[in-house]
C-alpha cells in the first residue's frame, strides 16, 4: 500500500459515525453504528490482506507533524495488526449485541462505542509515545459513561472505581514518558524501542509503566475494578472490556516494557511471575465460588491474563507467541462467553446461576455454542485456547519450571469452574419454569456467536494464519530482550549430565 492513509481512514470512519449518532434517533443510530463498524471491519480485512508478511517491520506508516512536541504518527507491525483485526471484528458484534437490549439513549450509547473503537485502533496504531498516551487514556471517558449510564444497580461505584484506578495507574506512566523523551530526544516509538536507557533509570521507568499496564491488564492484586466494572457494564461493554481493553495492558508490556527496558524487565521478573502465579490460583478459586455468571467470567479473565503475563516474561519466542495467541483467543472467547451470558440475561434479566438450569433442553443451539466457548476457555485442543496456553506454558517451562507448574494448575482450575458453570446452567433439571420457557437463539444472536465460533476454531486448527504476521516481530523482540533473559532453572538441570560424562562412565565401569 503506497501512501493511502488507511489507518487514518479507519480512525475517521467511526469518528464520523460517533458524531452522527449523537444527532439522530434510536433507529438510525443503530444503523449508522452497524454500518460504520462494518466498514471498519472491511478496512481491517483489507489491512490484513495487504500486510506484507516478512516485509518491513512497520507498515502502513503515516506521519504528519500536526502538533507541537508530538506528531500524528501511525503504523503497525504484525502484533498491532492482529489486535486491530480483533478490535474491528468484535465491534460489529457488540453493536448487534446491543441491538434490542439497549433502549434508552441509543444515540449516545452508539456514539460512545464508536468513539471507543477509534481509541482502540489508535492505541494499537500509534507510533508516537504521546499520541499513544492520548488514545490510551481517552478510553476512560467512553467506558466511564458506558458503565455509569447503562450499567446495573451498583454502576456508579463501579464507574468511579474504574475511572480513578486506571487514571492513577496511567499518570505515573506519563511522567516516565516525559523522562524518556527528554533523555532520548524523540517520542518516536520505533526509535525508543531500540534505545538503551541506563539500567538504573530503567528500573523506575519500568515501574511507572508497570503501574499503568498492571491496572489495565489487570494483574492481581489491582484487578478489583474489573469484576465490578464487568458486572455493571452492559453486555457489549463487557465484550469490549474483556475483548480489547484488557489487551491494551498486554500490548503495553510487549510494545513498551519489554523492548524499551529489557534489563528492568529481567530484574522484575520475580514480581511478574509471583503476581501471575498468585492470580492464576487465587482468582481461579474465587471464580469457583461465584453465583454471578459475569463475575465468574471476569475472574476467569484475570486468570487468563496471568497466563499472558507469564508468557510475555518467559523471555523466549514460544512464551511471547503464546502470550499473543492467548490474548487474541481470550478476546474472542471471553467476548463470546459474555455474549452467552447476555443472551440469557436479555431473556430472564438475571445473572444468578441458580436461576437457570437444564437450558440444553429448551435452548439446544445456545447450549452448543456455550459448550464450545466453555471448552475454548478451558483450552481444549482444536480450539484457540489450547494453542495459546500450550505455547505460553511451554515458554515459561523453559524459563522456570516452578512457575510453569503453578500456572498449569490454572488450566485444571479453569476446567473446574467453567465446567461447573456449564453444568449448572445447561445441564441438570429445569429448576425454574420461566427459565425453561426461554426461546432458543434468534438469527441475530446466531450470527454473533457463530462468527466468533468460526474464528475460535480457525485459530485452534490453523494458528499459523495468526502467527505468521507476528513471527518476525516476535523474533526481533526476542533478539532484543534475550541479552537480559534471566537464567533458566530447567536448562540447568538438563545441563548437568552432559557436563560430567566421565563420572558417569566411571560409575558404569564400576558396576
Amino acid at each position, binding site marked *: 500500500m503506497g501512501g493511502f492513509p488507511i489507518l487514518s481512514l479507519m480512525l475517521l470512519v467511526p469518528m464520523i459515525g460517533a458524531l452522527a449518532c*449523537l444527532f439522530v434517533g434510536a433507529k438510525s443510530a443503530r444503523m449508522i453504528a452497524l454500518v460504520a463498524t462494518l466498514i471498519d471491519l472491511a478496512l481491517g480485512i483489507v489491512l490484513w490482506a495487504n500486510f506484507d508478511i516478512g516485509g518491513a517491520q512497520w507498515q502502513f506508516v503515516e506521519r504528519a507533524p*500536526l*502538533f*507541537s*512536541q508530538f506528531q500524528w504518527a501511525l503504523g503497525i507491525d504484525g502484533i498491532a495488526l492482529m489486535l486491530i483485526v480483533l478490535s474491528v471484528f468484535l465491534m460489529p458484534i457488540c453493536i448487534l449485541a446491543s441491538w434490542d437490549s439497549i433502549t434508552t*439513549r441509543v444515540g*449516545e450509547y452508539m456514539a460512545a462505542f464508536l468513539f471507543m473503537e477509534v481509541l482502540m485502533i489508535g492505541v494499537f496504531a500509534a507510533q508516537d509515545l*504521546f499520541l499513544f*498516551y*492520548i*488514545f490510551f*487514556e*481517552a478510553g*476512560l*471517558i467512553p467506558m*466511564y*459513561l458506558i458503565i*455509569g*449510564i447503562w450499567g446495573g444497580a451498583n*454502576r*456508579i461505584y463501579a*464507574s*468511579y472505581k474504574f*475511572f*480513578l484506578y486506571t*487514571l*492513577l495507574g496511567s*499518570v*505515573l506512566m*506519563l*511522567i516516565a514518558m*516525559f*523522562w524518556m*523523551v*527528554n533523555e532520548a530526544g524523540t517520542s518516536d516509538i520505533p526509535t525508543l524501542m531500540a534505545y538503551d536507557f541506563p539500567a538504573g533509570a530503567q528500573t523506575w521507568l519500568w515501574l511507572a509503566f508497570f503501574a499503568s499496564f498492571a491496572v489495565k491488564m489487570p494483574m492481581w492484586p489491582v484487578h478489583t475494578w474489573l469484576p465490578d466494572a464487568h458486572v455493571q457494564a452492559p453486555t457489549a461493554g463487557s465484550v469490549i472490556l474483556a475483548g480489547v481493553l484488557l489487551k491494551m495492558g498486554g500490548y503495553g508490556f510487549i510494545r513498551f516494557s519489554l523492548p524499551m527496558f529489557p534489563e528492568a524487565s529481567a530484574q522484575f521478573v520475580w514480581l511478574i511471575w509471583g503476581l501471575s502465579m498468585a492470580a492464576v490460583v487465587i482468582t481461579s478459586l474465587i471464580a469457583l465460588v461465584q453465583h454471578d455468571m459475569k463475575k465468574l467470567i471476569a475472574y476467569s479473565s484475570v486468570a487468563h491474563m496471568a497466563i499472558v503475563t507469564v508468557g510475555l516474561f518467559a523471555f523466549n519466542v514460544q512464551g511471547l507467541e503464546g502470550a499473543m495467541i492467548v490474548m487474541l483467543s481470550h478476546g474472542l472467547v471471553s467476548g463470546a462467553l459474555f455474549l452467552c451470558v447476555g443472551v440469557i440475561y436479555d431473556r430472564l434479566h438475571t445473572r444468578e446461576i441458580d436461576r437457570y438450569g437444564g437450558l440444553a433442553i429448551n435452548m439446544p443451539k445456545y447450549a452448543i455454542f456455550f459448550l464450545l466457548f466453555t471448552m475454548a476457555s478451558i483450552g481444549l485442543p482444536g480450539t484457540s485456547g489450547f494453542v495459546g496456553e500450550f505455547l505460553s506454558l511451554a515458554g515459561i517451562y523453559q524459563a522456570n519450571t516452578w512457575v510453569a507448574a503453578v500456572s498449569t494448575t490454572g488450566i485444571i482450575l479453569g476446567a473446574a469452574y467453567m465446567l461447573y458453570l456449564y453444568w449448572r446452567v445447561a445441564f441438570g433439571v429445569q429448576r425454574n419454569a420461566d427459565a425453561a420457557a426461554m426461546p432458543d437463539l434468534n438469527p441475530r444472536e446466531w450470527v454473533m456467536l457463530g462468527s466468533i465460533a468460526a474464528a475460535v476454531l480457525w485459530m485452534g486448527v490453523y494458528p499459523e494464519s495468526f502467527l505468521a504476521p507476528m513471527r518476525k516481530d516476535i523474533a526481533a523482540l526476542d533478539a532484543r530482550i534475550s541479552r537480559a533473559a534471566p537464567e533458566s532453572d530447567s536448562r540447568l538441570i538438563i545441563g548437568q549430565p552432559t557436563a560430567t560424562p566421565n563420572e558417569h562412565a566411571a560409575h558404569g565401569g564400576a558396576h
Partner: protein
Amino acid sequence: MDFSHSLSLTLPEILLAVSGMVLLLVGAWVGDKASKAITIVSCAVLAVCFALVAPSVCAPAMGADTVAFGGLFVADAFAGLAKLMIFAAAGAALVVAPAFFGRYATMRAEYPVLILFSTLGMAIMVSATDLMTLYIGLELQSLAAYVLAAFHRPDDRSAEAGLKYFVLGALASGILLFGMSLVYGFTGTTTFDGIRAALSGGLGTGALFGIVFVLAGLAFKISAVPFHMWTPDVYEGAPTPVTAFFASAPKVAAVALTARVALDAFGVQAAAWQQVVIFAALASIVVGALGAIGQGNIKRLLAYSSINNVGFILIGLATATPQGASAMLVYLAIYVAMTVGSFVAVLMLRNADGEAVESISDIAGLSRTKPLLALCIAALMFSLAGIPPLFGFWGKFVVFQAAVQADLVWLAAVGIAASVIGAFYYIKIVKVMYFDEPADVVHGRSDWAHWGLLAISTLLMSPLGYLLTRWLGELADGAAAALFLAA
C-alpha cells in the same frame, strides 16, 4: 528613549483609561439606560486594545525597544500575551453580564466601566517592571474588583463577598507593601533590573524576608494555598459574570506578575523562592482537590477548581526555566478558555422563572433535558480534569514536561498523582448530569451570546484544540524568551 515612543508603547493602556473615564461621564449624565450602549462600546474598546497588542505577540517583541518611561513599564511579548488573555476574558465578562443583571433589573452603567478600569489595572500589572508600577496596577485592579464583587445588591451574599474580598485584599496589599519596602530597603531600588543586580551579589536575610513577603502578597492575589481562604466565599457571593471575570482575567494578571517578579526581579536567587513556590503548588493542588469534593454549590466548586489549577500553573513557575514560563502561559491560555466556558455554562443554568441555578443537585439528569448543554459541560469538566483527548490535558502536559526537563521529576510525579484526586469531583459533575435521574429544574433559554461563547470554549477544548498546539507553543516560547531576555 523619547516620550512619544513611551506613549506609543502604552497606547492600549491610555485608550483604556481615557475611554473608561469618558464612559463613566456618559454613564453619570445619561444614567443606567445607557448601560447597554456603554457595554457595547467597552467591548469595542477591548477589541481595539486586543488588536493593538496582538502584533507584539505574533512577532515576539523584546529588548530595549519595549521599555517605556525609563524602566517603569515594558510592553514585551510576555506582557502582550497576558494582555491578550485578559482582554478576551474581560470581553467575555461584558458579553454575559446584561442577561444576568437584566433578570434582576440591576444592570448599571458602572459595570462595564469598572471592568474597563480593572482591565487597565491588570494591563499595568503585567507590564510592570518597577515595584511602584506593580503596586499601582494591582490596586487599581483590586479596587475595581472589590466594587464588582458587591455589585449584585439584591443579594446579601454579594455584599458579604465584596466586604470579605476588600478586608482580606487590603491585608494582602499590606503584606505585599511590607515585602516591597523590605526589598527596597535592602537593595536600594524599586526597579526590577536594579533589584536583580543588587541580589546577584548575594542574598541577605532582610532581602529574603522581602522576597517571601512579596510572594505571600502575590499568592493571595492568585489564590494559592495557604492564602486561598477568601476564594470560595467571594466566588460564591459575587454575581456569576463577575465570578467568571475573577476566575479568569485577574488570575492571568496576577500569575503573569508573579512570574515576572520571581523570574526577573528575583531571578538570580531562584533557589530562595523555589521551595516556597513548590510548597504553594503542591498545597494548592491537594487543598483545591480535597476542598472541592464536599461542595454542593457549583460556583464554590469552581472556586476550588481554580485553586487547584493555580497549583499546576505554579509547577511551571517552580522550574524557573524558559520552558516552565512558556508552559505556564500555555496552561493559562487553556485555563482561561476552560474557565470562561464553565462559568458561561453555569450562567445558562436557569430555572423556569429565570433564576440562576447554582446547586449541583439541581443539574441532575441534565443530559436528558438539555443534552447539548450537558455535553458541553461534560467536555469542559473532563478537560478541567486533564483527561485526554480533551485540550485541558495539554496544559498539564506542558507543565509537567517542563518540570521533568528541569529535573524536578519527583515534583511532577507528586503533582500528577494529586491531580487524580481532582479528577474525582469533575467526574462527579458528569455523574450527576449523566447518571442520575433528572431533577428537571433547568428550563430557561439562553441567548446566542452565551451559546456562542460556550461553543467557542467547547470547540477549543475538543481534540481540535491540539491543532493549535504548535501556534500556541510558538507564541508562549516567544513570550517566555522576552521574559528571560531581561533576566
